[in-house]
């Protein structure tokens, strides 16, 4: 029996640069195919060809064994191909019901029938095992719920092939569970799903088959049950990955750099104690909403402190904003790179040097030389992959390389304490281990104190000397040394955040 959808040696290039060099892909009814690959491997291009957004330069698209002549968005729609984007594509101020019927309002004599619209929405959500009030506005929902609404829209629109592009990037773990339950429901209804992700544990949890792309070539295609994680990672990055190993315990820690006692900030977090010493990497681990990011942000002066004290290098410290925190030797990496980290249209050298401007300037005057020199130096030291062109906008770099520049900002500034929120979110596997190595090296050799907030337990295991586990705004557990394992972290973070 022919596959529901099949691509045969698809090629695609942009402006003469080949991105896909003859990729095959097939998917059957009720199958979940995980599509893995580093950034730039060609995943997005491949699924955009499936969705009809791009036309392949060469190769064939077959639906149920029949070649599709002119594959375009209209054709893809007619074939039941739907795509759920990483960034929400919904209409926030409209209700759940309206969103699910968006563009396909049920109308009688030109008037919208609200009752049938509600029924359609409720039916679609019920199929996903989700229940919520369809008369609420979408913007009042949590992000995971909004994603379910988008999936419900695709479902009620008779999706046969659903493409999900990193849907879990912003979800808490209970929301991920809910999403997976919804996917199970769709699988049992025969919907085929192509699932793009960076997270290997999700592949084993939900996918039937896994396909790995590297540099525009399919390098692995196998049933999930027949392939190990190491094999998947090796296929993705093209070399043996550093396994999930614990870092060596630091030798001879320096003095206490950041000390926090009984710190509270309104409803964000309560009574947090922690200490980070020079040369040490400490993680705050917890689900999104558990308060980890907020503690780190508060240490940078971004949230009002309602109780408790902080000491920096032994001296009382209470920042009234980021500027004072930077002056006092702290560096900060926000969770959302694009929204709060990048000066996207500005040159990469400027992005790197901005916090160091006061130091590079004389009497307020600032040349461009020091900034260019800093760029060349850090580009080499952190092996940032890009042209050696200080004037290129940082937006032209890949996610992992952008993140390296944002870290180098603080190395250049000479910060003594680094505060990092989700330091490798949206960063591909290769760059991720580079970033871990860099952070470990700087902590050790430059006696940096590093505090990270993360919801990724693999990150904690690979990076942190010590961990404080948080749930519902409180520290609920401490783990040190060999006690830091995925299993211990998962169980310690315990129940879900309401």
């Amino acid at each position, binding site marked *: 029996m022919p596959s529901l959808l099949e691509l045969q040696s698809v090629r695609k290039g*942009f*402006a*003469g*640069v080949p*991105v896909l060099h003859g990729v095959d892909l097939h998917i059957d009814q009720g199958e979940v195919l995980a599509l893995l690959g580093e*950034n*730039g491997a060609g995943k*997005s*291009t491949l699924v*955009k060809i499936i969705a009809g957004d791009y036309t392949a330069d060469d190769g064939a698209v077959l639906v149920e064994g029949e070649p599709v002549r002119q594959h375009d968005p209209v054709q893809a729609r007619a074939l039941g191909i739907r795509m759920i984007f*990483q*960034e929400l594509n919904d209409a926030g101020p409209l209700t759940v019901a309206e969103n699910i019927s968006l563009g396909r309002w049920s109308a009688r004599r030109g008037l919208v029938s609200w009752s049938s619209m509600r029924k359609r929405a409720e039916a679609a959500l019920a199929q996903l095992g989700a229940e919520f009030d369809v008369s609420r506005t979408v913007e009042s929902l949590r992000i995971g719920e909004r994603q379910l609404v988008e999936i419900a829209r695709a479902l009620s629109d008779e999706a046969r092939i659903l493409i999900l592009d990193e849907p879990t990037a912003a979800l808490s773990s209970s929301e991920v569970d809910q999403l997976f339950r919804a996917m199970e429901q769709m699988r049992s209804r025969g919907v085929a799903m192509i699932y793009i992700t960076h997270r290997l544990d999700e592949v084993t949890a939900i996918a039937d088959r896994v396909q790995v792309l590297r540099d525009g070539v399919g390098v692995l295609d196998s049933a999930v049950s027949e392939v190990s994680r190491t094999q998947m990672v090796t296929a993705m990055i093209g070399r043996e990955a550093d396994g999930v190993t614990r870092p060596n315990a630091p030798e001879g820690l320096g003095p206490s750099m950041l000390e926090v006692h009984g710190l509270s900030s309104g409803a964000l977090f309560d009574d947090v104690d922690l200490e980070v010493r020079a040369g040490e990497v400490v993680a705050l681990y917890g689900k999104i909403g558990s308060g980890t990011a907020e503690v780190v942000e508060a240490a*940078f002066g971004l949230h009002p402190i309602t109780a408790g004290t902080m000491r920096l290098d032994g001296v009382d410290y209470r920042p009234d*904003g*980021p*500027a004072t*925190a*930077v*002056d006092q030797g702290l560096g*900060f990496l*926000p969770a959302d790179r*694009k*929204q*709060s*980290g*990048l*000066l*996207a*249209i*500005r040159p990469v050298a*400027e992005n790197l040097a*901005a*916090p160091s*401007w*006061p130091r590079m*300037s004389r009497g*307020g*005057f*600032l*040349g461009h030389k020091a900034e260019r020199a800093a760029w060349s130096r850090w580009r080499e030291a952190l092996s940032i992959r890009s042209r050696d*062109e200080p*004037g*290129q*906008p940082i*937006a*032209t*770099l*890949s*996610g992992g390389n952008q993140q390296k520049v944002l870290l180098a*900002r603080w190395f250049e500034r000479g910060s003594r304490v680094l505060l990092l929120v989700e330091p490798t979110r*949206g960063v591909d596997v290769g760059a991720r281990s580079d970033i871990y190595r860099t952070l470990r090296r700087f902590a050790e050799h430059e006696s940096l104190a590093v505090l990270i907030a993360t919801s990724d337990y693999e990150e904690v295991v690979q990076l942190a000397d010590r961990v404080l586990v948080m749930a519902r705004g409180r520290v609920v557990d401490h783990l040190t040394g060999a006690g830091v394992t995925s299993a211990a972290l998962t169980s310690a973070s315990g129940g879900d955040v309401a």
Partner: protein
Amino acid sequence: MTQASQDDGGTVQLSKEAPATGRVDPSPSTTAGGAVVNPAPRGRSVPELAGLLVVLAALVVLFAVKSPYFLTTNNILNILSAIAVTGIIAVPATMLLVAGQVDLSVGSGAAFCGVLLATQVAPRGLGLAIVLAVVAGLAIGAVNGFFINVVGVNSLITTLGTLAVLRGLTQLLADGQTTIVTGFSALGTSRPFLSIPLSVIIFALIVAVGALCMRFTVFGRSLYAIGANPVAARLVGIRTRRVLIITFVLSGLAVAVSGLILTSQLSAASPVAATGLELTVVTAVVLGGASLSGGRGTVLGTVLGLVLIGVLNNGLVLLNVNSFWQDVARGTLLILAVSFDQLRQRFSAGS
């Protein structure tokens, strides 16, 4: 906020391999080229200004052919002194737009400062009247800066409000009358050096200081960072609020200087003076390549924009075109400039 997500994950990935994002052939005449595959290094702000230079050159040739008076020294100085009053304000306006802000109150602010001077000369003497006018300008900037950066009202709305408030206060202060000022014509009419008007010299100095400041000081560079991404700028330790308030105060200072020069040139202060000045200022800044979404723009570009507007107005007068056509021409120019900016951004984001 102003920084809509122009490049999502997809474009970023591609641009790693694809040859260029937003690179336009640096030679002026070929901006219309479709696929851009030239891997030459990016020429800073040249492409934006290239179009402007071409239009300017065309106008100069046209007017020079049509009117023998156009290229005379006298007429060129006329154009420059006509630009000066607007231009003095356009320099801080460039700083503001680069930082993603706009000040619409400049026209009524200038009228206010002028009328304040004119009405205070008799009771308090010229010296004190000048001081009062300058302080008023600084205060206008501080008030705008306060509402925008401390209260958090959008700059367009705040300065639209102060535009109306100041025009009303000016009328009240002047009692609806034009006030004659005597003994204050030096600022606007003297020609201390090579018969160049003092106002033009002041304008040139402000341009020089502004251009250096934008390119070679921490303050100026911070404006670009704030315009590119205000959140990120704050997180790298830039005191964004302070920087922006200072810039609004600078705008107020320029408004006062302009108002004084205008009053001096006419030896009188009218409560309806400088009406619509904000339109000319914004047009010049945008023509000069500043992006409405912030993070881009230069003082030099703004000067070119000003010259273009000045040449257009002057040429239309020389050709005896009905002066209302000047408004039509300026408005058209503004829309064309913004359309050009939009097309350039789309072109940059889409390649």
